[in-house]
């Protein structure tokens, strides 16, 4: 007993002896961590050239620049949403996969995205969320589901040449018509190659007493006259046409193969001929995922895809360390699986969950590549985050490394509490 105390205490308590052993590590730390840290701090008080001391001006500029404020707001959204989502999903998947036979294989698959660089993942998600449904898989699915329930219109984008006003209900004639009139309705904005094969050459109908007649055709102005039926032009079959009187639809018909349509008994009085909008609705193209309003959620979703594997691995490790008898005891006492999860598993796991969460917060604060790669140039300022802003300011735009250093210091101050928290936790666990 006495001997052990002597051996332990003597070398450890002599600082003079410790210094030579600590020196290599201290030099490395000073050169690689301390020096850049202090230099960034000093640099942040100088102007772009680095020669002139400007005091806190870089910080004032930073906090009055609307781009930084957007970046700041986005960082807040990231911190609030992303780590919690990843921890939550990771917890659920870890608990669920614990029960299945191929748990390791399953976790391996979920962990795989971690093996891809963030840059490459960004490019993948850039394509996944592409707006064109023939490229972006998300929009391909959205469009597919949408078209299953409401099929695309027959003549997307077509419109009357003139004389019709665009309303919510469709194209309404500006001039009224009445029984006995004939209407010619030239449509444009549709490719003549896409006209259905059953379409026949169009010709204006003869006027009929008591009937409102008309012809609706694809008006090709090349090689013919605009607004009149040329011999080669064909009628557009299957277009719905409505007669409206005092805001009420009084008759409805569809065009025949030669584009003709007839309203047999309209009675007396004027009607407005209207082409309902559903004839011409543009095909549904999905959502603009990479547009200004959805860009941050989209980037967060890809980060969740990448980081979930990380959370699962840590939580699964913590899960295997939970004493089985605690779970067994709860089950024997009649707890449901949900109660076991809620009252036993989660509380026992909470130290691990906290570490995962805090690590993710740190990770999120320095998010850069995903935003840089996924956001198209037109929305990059809407998707901006502090780390990207720091890089752009320091190196991108004429290189103001003073202002960039100020941003770096701000970013450091934001990360520091999370790091301190983690360090203190580790220390407490050890003691």
């Amino acid at each position: 007993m006495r001997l052990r105390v002597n051996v332990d205490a003597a070398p450890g308590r002599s600082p003079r002896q410790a210094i030579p052993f600590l020196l290599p590590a201290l030099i490395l730390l000073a050169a690689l961590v301390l020096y850049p840290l202090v230099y960034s701090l000093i640099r942040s008080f100088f102007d772009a050239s680095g020669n002139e001391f400007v005091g806190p001006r870089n910080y004032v500029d930073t906090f009055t620049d609307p781009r930084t404020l957007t970046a700041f707001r986005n960082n807040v959204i990231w911190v609030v949403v992303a780590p919690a989502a990843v921890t939550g999903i990771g917890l659920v998947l870890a608990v669920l996969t614990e029960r299945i036979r191929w748990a390791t294989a399953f976790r391996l698959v979920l962990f795989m995205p971690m093996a891809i660089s963030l840059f490459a993942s960004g490019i993948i998600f850039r394509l996944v969320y592409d707006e064109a449904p023939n490229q972006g898989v998300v929009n391909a699915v959205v469009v597919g589901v949408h078209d299953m329930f409401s099929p695309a219109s027959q003549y997307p984008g077509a419109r009357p040449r003139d004389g019709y006003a665009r309303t919510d209900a469709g194209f309404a004639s500006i001039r009224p018509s009445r029984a006995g009139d004939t209407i010619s309705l030239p449509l444009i904005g549709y490719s003549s190659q896409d006209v259905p094969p059953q379409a026949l050459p169009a010709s204006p109908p003869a006027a009929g007493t008591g009937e409102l007649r008309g012809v609706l055709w694809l008006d090709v102005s090349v090689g013919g006259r605009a607004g009149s039926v040329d011999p080669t032009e064909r009628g557009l079959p299957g277009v719905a046409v409505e007669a409206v009187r005092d805001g009420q639809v009084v008759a409805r018909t569809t065009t025949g193969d030669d584009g003709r349509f007839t309203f047999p008994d309209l009675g007396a009085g004027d009607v407005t001929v209207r082409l309902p909008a559903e004839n011409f609705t543009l095909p549904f193209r999905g959502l603009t995922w990479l547009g200004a309003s959805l860009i941050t959620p989209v980037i967060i979703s890809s980060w969740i895809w990448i980081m979930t594997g990380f959370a699962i691995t840590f939580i699964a490790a913590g899960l295997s360390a939970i004493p089985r008898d605690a779970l067994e005891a709860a089950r024997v006492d009649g707890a449901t699986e949900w109660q076991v999860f809620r009252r036993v598993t989660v509380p026992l796991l909470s130290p691990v969950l906290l570490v995962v969460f805090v690590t993710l917060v740190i990770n999120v604060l320095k998010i850069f590549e995903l935003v840089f790669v996924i956001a198209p140039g037109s929305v990059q300022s809407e998707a901006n985050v502090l780390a990207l802003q720091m890089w752009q300011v320091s190196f991108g735009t004429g290189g103001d490394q003073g202002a960039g250093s100020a941003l770096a210091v701000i970013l450091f101050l934001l990360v520091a509490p999370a790091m301190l928290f983690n360090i203190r936790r580790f220390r407490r666990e050890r003691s």
Partner: protein
Amino acid sequence: MGKQWIALLALTAAACSGGAAGTGTTEDLKGQTVEVVGPWTGDEQKSFEQVLKVFTDKTGAEVRYTPAGDELPTVVQTRISGGTPPNVALIAQPGLVAQFAKAGALKPVNADVEKAVTDHNAAVWKQLGSVDGKLYGFTFKTANKSAFWYSEKAFQQVGATPPATWDDLIKTSRAISETGLAAVSVGGADGWTLTDWFENVYLRTAGPDNYDKLAKHEIPWTDPTVRKALEELAKLWGDPTLIAGGALQTEFPKSVTNVFGEPSTAAMVFEADFVASIITTNTKAKVGEDAKFFPFPSVAGSKDAVVAGGDMAVQFKDDKATTELMKFLASPESGKVWAELGGFLSPNKDIPETAYPDAVTQELAQRIVDAGDNVRFDMSDLAPAAFGGTKGAGEWKDLQDFLADPKNVDGIMARLEANAAKAFGK
């Protein structure tokens, strides 16, 4: 024996240096290495390396090419800060060249290079490379940014001919949109395409003098001439039947394949000569047959003018090998090598027209040479990068917002002016 060897060596050395003074074809720079940083990657990198190989064969100097892509300003800036600049860089932003020159990072070119630049180029190009009266560089590769590329098939379908005026362009666009095809595909996800649109219209509506003033921010962006140009642009951009959908999510290469790929969704795309190489690599369309171009139309009776871009060769060191390389790049000889490989235009008027591989390229090159001093350099590249060259900021972002809402002329002008004032004020 030993003496003989020494004599032989001396003789060889003498022969070498003698040759250099005369024709410059001997390998007197053997063992020296020159590093060049340029923006070109992929096929362009291969072509440029061919050019450099000719130099190596001529002089024996080793040339190491570092492709920096779009991040070239960052790369060069960082290298300068670190005290290890490359020997030569090819920089697309004259504003950045001026910035480097003023900071003393650049070396002025020597008399031989200056003579070559004066002899082979119109005066406007020499002005472009000069800062405070000293010549620092010259445009090695240029881009003709005043071209509308159109699908021959789509034009035939409506019987259209290449429009000569802006109003004709809009008329043709309407006719095309009647066939259910969008008239123009705009690559609005990239901001620089939009600045090129604006510059072409502005050069025509406001004239070269105002163009120069606006480029230096001597007149504000709230000037009536800017309003006029934006309003002309809005005639086209403001009509949703004329512009292919999702323009703000369309990157520049996509805007080209929208027109020439299958299925095509638009009939025309505006941009520079390098559209041709995108057509060739990404679509089945043949340049000159299926894909043709017409010069940017005249707006309100304006005279012919060309907006050009280009990569300026500048030197950060002035050792012999570097100077020789600059001399070589300024000569028609180097340009001819790349011209024959395609995808290259030069302001150098002494490159024979026949060096360019096809009729389309010949015409594009000829237009730049013919325009002489009426060429104007891309305004956004002349501006500080914070205004004219940053993704999601400055002019790029403001014009993207304008594309999203072409009615908001006043708001955009105010924003452009605010951003310009900030960037030029630094």
